[in-house]
């Protein structure tokens, strides 16, 4: 564990690491351009957080599926709770500290470790104190119920954005009202007015990013598939942290170009490509290097993550930014975990397996995540119907003590043997 005393020391450590990774990347021609850009963007994101106080900027901490376009349009420094905490934990090896501190605050093991760790990170003062907390119930109880504790720890005001369950006109209208109320809240807190032109630009940026993401998904259908496991987490990170911003567009365009080149040259992410798998839910973030290595060793490639990379159909209209943000929240791939899971979601899983020619699927069963684990049986049954085996891999998204690398390796190898025997 790295002994870092305070917020600025911790973030400065992080920034040095990001700079080093960029430097190393530039020296190695095999490192693709978008990977270097990824660390450059992380450096930019954390620098903004680090300097916010000194520059007199307002920091709003927000949960994953809040429309970040609003914060950028109001020149508020966004600090996304989940990704900021866990990137920080990953690079400083303080994850266990964060989780333990969350436990001390009264969050028992039933609360997912990601949310326990976030509360812990704030409580330990590792994250800078925000000026406001904005959070929502998208996509689970743990996210919804952690907001008031984060407000209390930071002694700051907050706004809870309530997502309705369904997709009716009344529910969409309610969500629009919630977003409007959140803007009013932020205007009151910051003393600034919403810059609607900026918001429209951000919405246009988001639409562009959705389009590129869809094109990237198309490229991943190629045999061999060009997309590396670590690129999944990187892509999520950039699009979560820079919603609608030119930075995310630049990253996605660069990723698309790199992948296009691979496809045109017939190069896959792994060589030879032996197993095409579909990933359901999130793999443990700390095992990304392992998964990359394992994939290379065994010729396994993840071709799709239906719940995280497959946007629902639809378009955004920058001239109607609020309606578009509502539309975006309904198009979010992850929303399929929140809405009633019925025939539509099941069809998406099945179609994805077929279209991407998946030999098998892996469900990363985060032992502390109720709403994803409760779907495994449903997904397994529909995948069985089309003869796609499903591996259920118990793990924890952020807590390294739950599953060892050896366990994961053993189960994955057994699964690949099963696929090979078919």
């Amino acid at each position, binding site marked *: 564990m790295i002994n870092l005393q305070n917020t600025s020391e911790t973030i400065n450590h992080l920034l040095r690491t990001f700079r080093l990774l960029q430097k190393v990347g530039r020296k190695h021609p095999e490192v693709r351009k978008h990977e270097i850009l990824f660390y450059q963007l992380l450096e930019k994101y954390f620098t903004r957080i680090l300097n916010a106080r000194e520059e007199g900027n307002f920091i709003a901490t927000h949960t994953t599926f809040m429309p970040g376009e609003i914060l950028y349009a109001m020149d508020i420094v966004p600090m996304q709770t989940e990704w900021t905490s866990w990137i920080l934990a990953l690079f400083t090896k303080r994850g266990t500290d964060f989780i333990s501190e969350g436990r001390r*605050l*009264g*969050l*028992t093991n*039933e*609360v997912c470790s990601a949310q326990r760790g976030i509360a812990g990170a704030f409580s330990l003062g590792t994250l800078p104190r925000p000026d406001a907390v904005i959070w929502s*119930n998208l996509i*689970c*109880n*743990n996210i*919804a*119920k*952690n*907001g*008031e*504790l984060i407000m209390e720890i930071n002694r700051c005001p907050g706004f*809870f954005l*309530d997502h*309705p*369950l*369904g997709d*009716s006109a*009344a*529910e969409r209208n*309610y969500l629009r*009202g*919630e977003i409007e*109320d959140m803007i009013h809240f932020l205007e009151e807190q910051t003393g600034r007015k919403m810059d609607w032109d900026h918001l429209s630009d951000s919405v246009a940026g988001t639409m562009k990013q959705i389009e590129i993401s869809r094109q990237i998904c198309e490229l991943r259908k190629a045999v061999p598939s060009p997309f590396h496991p670590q690129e999944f987490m990187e892509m999520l990170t950039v699009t979560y942290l820079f919603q609608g911003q030119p930075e995310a567009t630049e990253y996605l365009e660069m990723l698309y170009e790199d992948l296009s080149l691979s496809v045109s040259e017939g190069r896959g992410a792994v060589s030879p490509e032996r197993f095409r798998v579909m990933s359901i839910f999130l793999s443990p973030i700390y095992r990304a290097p392992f998964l990359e290595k394992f994939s290379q060793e065994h010729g396994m490639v993840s071709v799709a993550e239906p719940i995280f990379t497959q946007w629902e159909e639809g378009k955004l209209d920058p001239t109607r930014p609020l309606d578009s943000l509502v539309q975006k929240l309904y198009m979010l791939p992850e929303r399929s975990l929140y809405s*009633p*899971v*019925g025939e539509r979601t099941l069809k998406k899983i099945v179609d994805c397996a077929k279209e991407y020619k998946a030999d098998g699927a892996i469900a990363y*069963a985060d*032992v*502390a*995540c*109720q*709403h994803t*684990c*409760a*779907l*495994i*049986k*449903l997904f397994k049954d529909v995948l069985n119907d089309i003869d796609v085996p499903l591996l259920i891999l118990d793990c924890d998204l952020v807590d390294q003590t739950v599953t060892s690398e050896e366990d994961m390796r053993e189960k994955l190898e057994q699964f690949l043997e099963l696929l090979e025997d078919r």
Partner: protein
Amino acid sequence: MKPAPTADLTSQALDRFREVNGLFPETSHILEHKRQGKKVLGWLCTYVPEEIMHAAGVLPIRITGYSHEIKPDEGNAYLYVNNCSFSRSCLQLGLRGGYDFLDGIAGGSTCDCARRLMDLWHHYIATSFYHMITVPQKYSSKAHELYYEQITQFTQHLSEFTGIEITDASLSHSIQIYNESRELLRKLYDLRKANNPPITGSEIIEISNAGFRMPKETFNEYLKNLLTNIDTSRHAYSNSRARLMLTGSILGNHEFVESIEQLGGLVVTDDLCTSTRHWYDMIEVNQDESPLRAISRRYLNNFPCARMIPHDERLKRIRDLAQGFRVDGAISQIVHNCTPYTHELSFVTKMLEAQGIPVLSLDVEYGTASSGQIQTRVQAFLEMLEGKRR
């Protein structure tokens, strides 16, 4: 001349509720309702307005799963072990045919486990009626509008399903019946404010459970009979050591409460959704207001579940109950993996302790009657409370 209330008459009145629980679901009320060709619907969670189902001629039955702790084989296989044992218990009973008498189910988007239970129920247990209500998680005027729209949809869906038009008059009639029930329960619960209450916390849970499983009209008759015949000089607790409040998740097994009371803990109040929180607020229809509007307001504003944000209202009501019933301590029983209540526990504990009310926190499985470990902890808690009083 009517006989004066005695302990015997009290027991007889209580036995009527016990009979319903003992026979469920083969009770004469359900069988008769079905025989008449009427519908029986299951409802899940206190944010589903029973009055609307009642107004559609439906017999609403609460889905409560097994009344005892089970080995949730199917529950685990379908919902996974990290979902609360309440949802797994309900699903397992459903998968095993225990709810085959239902014509449908209605639920609310109240928590992750409830949402997933409804998803799986819809997929694996075929019922001809299925309805999911979006329940806002806050109390703003916009939230009230959305909830009103949601229960309007529910009303229309039910009308189509039953072929019975749900009118303002029928809703008003249902409100009257359900409000009567609330009034009677309030009278009954208020008896527990006495130094030596004539009714136990365990008996209260038995009564509540029966109320979820029978027509409200009959339940009201049973309650009136009990209130008439209850012997107020009856000391339900022979060895009371401390007045307690129960707080936390859903609780179905009265034996859990009984086990606390056998150790000398007087369970005089609670904020459980299977007890106080279920009936607490009346439906008040304002002038020039539709009954549906009044139902909507009451259900969203009612004594809140831990899911609601902000939590201030829930904390205030818990504090008021604790003060009103003069409790010495509180026992928090949280069903394992019930996330909303787990998140709120530290806030509840802090608030009650600031009032001088210690809290014992128990992590339980739904349906548990108790265990040696629980008994030991309750025993130690009671000793601590006694020590504090000295």
